[in-house]
């Protein structure tokens, strides 16, 4: 890793919040990757004779309304949530960044069209937009992922476009053009590396939010299918039981909370390290 990278990592490590956040995320990542090894039961196996049991040696986090082991569901749920976060962000960034770069670099009518398209999506509150997209596409986890990624496209487009506009005027870009570098080469070598900073920050924070929105959608019945070990859906299934069996609701809730917290802490620290300016403009979304 080059010196610059190492310097960034060092500064990052000095932020307590970054360390905490990264640890949390690492924990969940391990859960997700090694789920089959860590889970004690099959997450979908319902043992009605053991319904609503509290914490015990057999079932670390107890059982839910139909007798499924909550611990295993949470462990597999981390797989689902991380999958959602990563896929949604990847899709969102790919499309959004592409649009933003094209808009910024070529300008003119292309810029106008793309920005108007983005403007169509921005005034809509995120949950609303996600709900509508899922309603149109149909209820499923895949569609929830698609909905979430669409919701975030305008943000990345904007960030990238702003970065590209800033850099486009630099001398080294002009120099590259003068010696005949192709557009693609200029974009790839000169412009892209400079856009990476705000992108990383936004991606990290965005993953937390994506998981939150996806959980919200599942909570409303618009996301994960019945029986799938997704944290939001677990909250929904068991919400009537909150008085008799609070652990059925609290455990997935805390899981969501910790994951989002992890992303927020890490993202915030990244923002401090990479670009303190962002913090004051309040680009928390």
């Amino acid at each position, binding site marked *: 890793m080059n010196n610059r990278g190492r310097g960034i990592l060092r500064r990052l490590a000095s932020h307590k*919040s970054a360390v905490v956040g990264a640890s949390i995320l690492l924990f969940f990542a391990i859960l997700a990757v090694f789920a089959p090894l860590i889970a004690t039961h099959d997450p979908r196996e319902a043992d009605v004779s053991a319904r609503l049991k509290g914490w015990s040696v057999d079932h670390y986090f107890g059982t839910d309304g139909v007798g499924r082991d909550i611990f295993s569901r949470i462990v597999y749920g981390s797989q689902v949530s991380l999958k959602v976060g990563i896929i949604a962000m990847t899709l969102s960034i790919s499309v959004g960044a592409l649009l933003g770069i094209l808009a910024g670099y070529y300008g003119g009518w292309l810029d106008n069209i793309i920005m*108007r398209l983005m*403007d*169509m*999506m921005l*005034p*809509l*509150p*995120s*949950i*609303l937009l996600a*709900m*509508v997209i*899922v*309603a*149109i596409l149909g209820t499923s986890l895949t569609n929830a992922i698609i909905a979430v990624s669409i919701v975030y496209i305008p943000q990345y487009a904007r960030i990238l476009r702003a970065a590209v506009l800033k850099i486009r005027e630099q001398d080294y870009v002009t120099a590259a053009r003068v010696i005949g570098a192709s557009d693609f080469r200029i974009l790839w070598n000169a412009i892209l590396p400079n856009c990476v900073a705000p992108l990383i920050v936004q991606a990290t924070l965005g993953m*937390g939010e994506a998981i*939150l929105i996806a*959980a*919200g959608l599942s*909570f*409303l*019945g*618009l996301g994960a299918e019945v029986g799938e070990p997704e944290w*939001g859906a677990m*909250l929904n299934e068991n*919400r009537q039981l*909150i*008085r008799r069996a*609070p652990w059925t*609701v*609290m455990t997935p*809730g805390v899981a*969501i*909370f*910790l994951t*989002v*917290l992890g992303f*927020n*802490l890490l993202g*915030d620290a990244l923002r401090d390290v990479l670009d303190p300016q962002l*913090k*004051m*403009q*309040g680009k*928390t*979304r």
Partner: protein
Amino acid sequence: MQGYIIRRLLYFIPTLILISIDSFAVIQAPPRDFVTTLVVQMEARGDQVDEDLINALRARYGLGKPLWQQYLIWIGNILIGDLGVSMAYNQPVSRIIMDRLPWSLLFSFSAFLIVYAIGFPIGFLSAVRQYSIADYFLTFVGFIGLAIPNFMLALILLWGHFEATGQALVGIFSVEYAVAPWSFGKFLDLLYHLWIPALIVGTAGTTGLIRIVRANLLDERKKPYVTAARAKGVSETRLILNYPVRLAINPVISNIGYVLLALISGEVITSIVIGLPTIGPVLLRALQTEDMYLAGSIVLILSVLTLVGTLVSNLLLAVIDPRIRHGV
């Protein structure tokens, strides 16, 4: 300044049109058209299907014509106040929305007040007493607030309230006051029922605001003019209040748009959980039952409200900050 206002208004109108296209897309989304669905439902209920009525409906909503014509007809209908008919509720959409919109607005507005009334002073305190225990504690709370999913918070608070008082905090009024005429008691009951949801929705916005205010104030304090003023002997309080605060207000106001978005999103989910008679639950049901005119109209109205709010915040910003007024 006039130039700025005019430019903002000019920008507002095309965005309004774009939003209407969005909402129109929502309405057109399901594969069957509205009248066909209506017919299917009526037949399922065993109602008589009146040919003339069906044809009249088709003509009124312009189904079967090219898409852009349908769009214009829809817009025309909206302008005279006809937002279509909801099939699930069997009422005109406008009536359903007008029944619930005031509550939604009241609710969002209270959340909005909470966000700014709590957020700003806390951010201020946090900056002034930087690195103190209070600062760390508040920052910590801030992170927590941002990370908690608001539907979970809603569930927990509902549960807590139930355990504490033995009553379920569902809806906007307690049973006694639900149908009673307005009185001071009823008003108090409303406030009592309102503060928990408003708090839930406001949590994320408040924490965001705290961090923005804090960051800006801290940055301003380091600037040379502050040191100069302090050297001249201006008291600390006056120092903070007169200068950095004025500058810190800038991003606060420019973020009203984002805050509104968060509030509306939060309001939708929270009112679904708590069962408030606002627009949220209605939207969910509309989407689930493919009640498209209702869904599309709600989307339209919420987006327009957000847009208006953003516009107001932009204008407010121009009033407060001369730099923006004169186009610097």
